[in-house]
């Protein structure tokens, strides 16, 4: 309790300490004497003025100028040929390529995730053999570059003429003619899925490990069947931390599909590339077309991610995070409330 005048006045609204005599200026906040206009407002009733931050304003200005320059460059630089961009953006060749990209991504994402869950379960299994095999799988496919996997699979039919299902070294039950089975799209999907599963397994495993040990214990103390424990108790909780990491993988996968160009599949990038070699002058706008489509796909995935995460956060947070629309609404409400408050003071 300092004796400086400011401190004495600021004590006015606080309960007076036993040993300090109540200061003369003290009076409860908000009870101003009528007719006393010249007297300063009591400190307790005054609004705190926010600190001025000139540095922040300068930095903001610099960044805005830079952004404007980049935008200006993008629009005015003839090198980008925006008219050609417009010409190519919705061309059927490009859209066909986009469709291939979507198709390959969708299959590989689903198969990769399923495979990843299986491999993760293998890693967490009590059987040392399953653990070793799963670990080796992940090790192998994380080590070999995706392009090598794809090219290897592409030449697979030269190595193995037929694929058969049966007893090793014994009779075969089913036999497939590999050259008929392995179309370009199958090769692409298999290659991407194998790669995706290796990474997804680690994402899934980290999600499962993140679930509190007490949840496993509670589930088994209740005598819940093993499959129920996994599908209804552990996995739904794991999905909360799996989602952001898996979306990362998914976005990477969308872009990795551009590699299927090398197994003669014309995806989005492949069509842009092949059109580029036919019309060499249009390479830059064609690459821009591909870029913008990839941006659109990634944005769509990000929006879905937000709602999926929101769904899985039920129970993990006390209140659900607001949707963008709710954010705008509460933002407006707060702004209005603040304006009203300011007018009142």
């Amino acid at each position, binding site marked *: 309790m300092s004796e400086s005048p400011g401190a004495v006045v600021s004590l006015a609204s606080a309960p007076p300490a036993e040993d300090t005599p109540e200061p003369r200026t003290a009076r409860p906040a908000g009870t101003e004497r009528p007719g006393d206009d010249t007297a300063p407002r009591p400190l307790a009733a005054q609004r705190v003025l926010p600190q001025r931050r000139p540095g922040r304003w300068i930095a903001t200005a610099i960044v805005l100028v830079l952004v404007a320059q980049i935008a200006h460059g993008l629009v005015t630089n003839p090198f980008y040929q925006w008219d050609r961009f417009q010409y190519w953006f919705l061309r059927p060749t490009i859209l066909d390529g986009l469709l291939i990209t979507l198709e390959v991504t969708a299959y590989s994402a689903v198969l990769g995730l399923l495979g990843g869950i299986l491999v993760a379960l293998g890693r967490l299994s009590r059987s040392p053999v399953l653990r070793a095999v799963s670990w080796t799988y992940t090790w192998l496919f994380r080590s070999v570059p995706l392009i090598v996997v794809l090219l290897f699979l592409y030449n697979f039919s030269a190595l193995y003429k037929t694929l058969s299902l049966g007893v090793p070294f014994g009779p075969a039950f089913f036999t497939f003619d590999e050259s008929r089975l392995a179309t370009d799209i199958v090769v692409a999907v298999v290659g991407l899925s194998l790669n995706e599963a290796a990474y997804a397994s680690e994402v899934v495993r980290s999600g499962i490990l993140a679930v509190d040990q007490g*949840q496993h214990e509670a589930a088994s*103390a*209740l*005598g819940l069947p*093993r499959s129920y424990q996994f599908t209804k108790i552990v996995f739904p*909780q794991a999905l909360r931390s799996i989602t952001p990491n898996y979306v990362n993988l998914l976005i990477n996968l969308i872009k990795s599909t551009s590699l299927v160009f090398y197994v003669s599949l014309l995806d989005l990038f492949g069509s842009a590339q092949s059109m580029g070699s036919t019309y060499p002058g249009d390479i830059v706008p064609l690459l821009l077309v591909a870029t913008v489509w990839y941006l659109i796909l990634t944005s769509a995935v990000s929006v879905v991610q937000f709602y999926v995460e929101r769904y899985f956060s039920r129970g*993990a947070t*006390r209140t659900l995070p607001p949707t963008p629309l709710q954010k705008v609404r509460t933002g407006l409400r707060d702004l209005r409330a603040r304006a009203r408050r300011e007018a009142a003071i």
Partner: protein
Amino acid sequence: MTTETAESTELSAITDTIDTTDTTEIRPAAVEVHGVHKWYGAHRVLDGVELTVRPGEVTVILGPSGSGKSTLLRVINHLEKPEVGYVSVNGELIGVRRHGERSEAGVRPAAGRGRLKELSERAILGQRSRIGFVFQNFNLFPHLTALDNVAAAPVATGKLTKPEARELARELLGRVGLADKAGAYPRQLSGGQQQRVAIARALALRPGVILFDEPTSALDPELVGEVLAVIKDLATSGTTLIIVTHEIGFAREVADRVVFLDEGRIVEQGPPSAVLDHPEHERTRDFLSKVL
């Protein structure tokens, strides 16, 4: 799983003693722990524990931390496997069967004779569903509402249909005083409320015995009372309860028997008036002088 069917028909033949408004029947179970030894690596946690709990009896286990109280409780529902010895509930061996014995329930082998074989995981899960367990940290399922937490197990274990389980869950939540919190997620509840939901969840399986592992240790002092009140209600209704706690006053009030455990051994046991007020052993006196 012939054992289980025989057991459950047997269970439903007895009139419920817990709640008169309740239509489902529970028979309080007898619990026996015989010669149980348990090691964690080189450290011996349980050292030849012998304990007999009669049906409907309320047993409170006291002891310093590290004395093996929680481990003993976890051995009873086979969350921990004892290296030597066995546990039986209503005469049925938990987690193991006698070698060569397949389906007869209620056959108790003489200690030390006959080899014990581990049961299948499915069978162990079936046995656990007849033994309630309440954790120190509640361990409610955070992604399920209070109602679904309670209703999940009876449905998953095939004992009730979903509507039946939800009705039972509502009734049990009412009994622990949380009828209005059915739709709340665990994180939206206070610690005391969460623990009461956890007790309702354990009750939903109609267990013959309920094990409490320090049910109030993670709670604020002012919330302890509401949980103890629910346990007291269970104690007076005739369910077999085995409670590990540090609440000596509560032990004195509800326990039929107090067991004092130290370094994995039962030092002494008896009615609270004997163990708590006139302890025979120096170790017990020493412990009580510190916690009282």
